[in-house]
């Protein structure tokens, strides 16, 4: 008998892990680097779409069986049965999806921003990324072969072979959290370094940074590649978590959610954005649960709209009173400080 409290916790932590990765990636791009990425959802979606493609087309190949049409009921059944009986294939496919998604999202991030990277005004980039998200959704929705258009494709959880649904969710949650923690540690190491200083200098004063010899076009590209790759990872994790990849999941509000997490929690402070992620997860899961309870009174869709309105107003309030978020930024922690203080 599934314990509702346990599943609520598992659900909360799983979402938190995914949101944490997304907000860390945006924090890197905007909090540290000053690049406003209004198209986060595009790379999140790319990761999920890659997962869809890998799961539907690669999995049978890895399991060494003749594939059916990936979008047919037979294909779906085949995937489910492989996952349940062949742990190796299931996990390998998952791993392949992760690696491929990071790669594809990273490259995609670079390609899309390339035209705008050389333009000094950063919100150009912001606009281009914003519309990319929508275009991607429209294209993937119309072009069947990727994830079966607006029908979407079902991908079973890589731990399906555990049979017990509680165990499956728990195991998967652990994987999500493990990846999230690793990414957190990685980002911390990345920004407490000369690279972190470089990002902040680009953020604080582009012109000064350029006159001090920094090749900003290259740095912008680098930070966007990393940010996009990370978002792609989050996308894969989300796809496998929800078990279903559908282009219509990836609407612009998702980008906005990530922004709220970063701005609320604290720009350029990784602990801060984790706080932001916790708060957003609470709002998100909270409204979902509320919606299910209230299913009899008004539709779920209306409650969602209300949630988005509240989140939007929350953002405006934060911007009005605490522009840089709850937890303030800290200096770049490198050995340099020990040297200076030691004297």
């Amino acid at each position, binding site marked *: 008998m599934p314990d509702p409290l346990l599943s609520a916790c598992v659900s909360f932590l799983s979402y938190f892990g995914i949101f944490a990765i997304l907000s860390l990636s945006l924090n890197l791009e905007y909090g540290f680097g000053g690049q406003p990425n209004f198209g986060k959802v595009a790379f999140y979606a790319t990761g999920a779409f890659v997962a869809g493609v890998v799961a539907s087309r690669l999995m049978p190949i890895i399991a060494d069986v003749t594939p059916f049409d990936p979008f047919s009921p037979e294909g779906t059944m085949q995937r489910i049965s492989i996952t349940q009986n062949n742990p190796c294939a299931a996990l390998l496919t998952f791993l392949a999806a992760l690696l491929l998604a990071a790669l594809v999202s990273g490259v995609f991030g670079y390609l899309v921003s390339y035209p705008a990277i050389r333009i000094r005004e950063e919100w150009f980039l912001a606009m281009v990324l914003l519309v990319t998200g929508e275009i991607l959704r429209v294209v993937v929705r119309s072009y069947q072969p990727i994830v079966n258009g607006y029908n979407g494709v079902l991908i079973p959880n890589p731990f399906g072979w555990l049979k017990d649904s509680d165990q499956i969710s728990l195991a998967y949650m652990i994987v999500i959290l493990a990846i999230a923690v690793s990414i957190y540690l990685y980002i911390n190491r990345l920004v407490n*370094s*000369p*690279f972190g200083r*470089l990002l902040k200098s680009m953020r*604080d*004063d582009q012109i*000064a940074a350029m*006159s*001090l010899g920094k090749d900003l076009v290259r740095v912008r590209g680098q930070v966007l590649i990393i940010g996009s790759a990370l978002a792609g990872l989050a996308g894969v994790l989300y796809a496998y978590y929800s078990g279903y990849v559908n282009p219509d999941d990836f609407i612009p509000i998702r980008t906005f959610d990530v922004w709220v997490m970063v701005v609320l929690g604290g720009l350029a402070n990784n602990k801060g954005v984790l706080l932001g992620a916790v708060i957003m997860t609470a709002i998100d899961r909270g409204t979902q649960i509320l919606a299910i309870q209230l299913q009899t009174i008004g539709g779920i869709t209306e409650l969602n709209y209300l949630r988005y309105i509240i989140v939007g107003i929350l953002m405006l309030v934060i911007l009005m009173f605490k522009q840089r978020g709850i937890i303030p930024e800290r200096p770049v922690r490198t050995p*340099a400080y020990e040297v200076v203080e030691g004297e």
Partner: protein
Amino acid sequence: MNEILKLENVVKCYESLRAVDGVSLSIKEGSVIGLIGPNGSGKSTLFNVISGLDRANEGKIWFRGIRIENLPPHKIFSLGLVKSFQDPRLFLGMTVLDNMLVPPKGQKGESPVIAPLHSKWRDQEIALATKASELLEKLLLKGLHKTLSAEISGGQMKLLEMGRTLMAEPRMLLLDEPTAGVAPKLARDIFERLLKLREEFNLTLFIIEHRLEVLFDYVEYVYVMHRGKILAEGKPDDILDNKVVAEVYLGG
């Protein structure tokens, strides 16, 4: 002495305005040269063009024998030509120390691939930090290293700006009004410091200044700009005696 900077017929237009109109000059390594002229004569624009922040429409520029008029600012910087700003453009979201540590060239840790591997750049970082520490001490900013640069005083900001520029190990500095907005005594102080640093680091200094009485005590040669052209050039004494210059300054 070698020629370190040479300009040949440099022109910069904004729409129909010729902000820099055919400027040619030559500067020897190690010298201290002044650039004066009334407001709007194109001095700052000229500096922007030389340092790469703006692109010249016509003309050629050589730095240490290399043509630079088409190079991006960061490449010009890496050759050793550094421009400092009239108003200090500090990185306000960063501490004083972090500001100082941004300019040095060739930091291994600036590559995102190497950055997470702290051991690979640790030694370099420590060396740079030591150097920054010494400079901060000379500039009397030592105790403020952990302070956000946004929170120090105006005079301290100017000193930090200078320190930051020096961390870049420049060969030549383009200084745009280094004493703007400071008291006369501090202005002289700044110039004294500049000259000392020039000796220590073998710099060439090209300085835009309005405080002629201070400037003329320290520079060897002066260029006078007016309406985008070089109106006159010569030793400070000759410029002081130049009637055309006087007219432009007092009349214009």
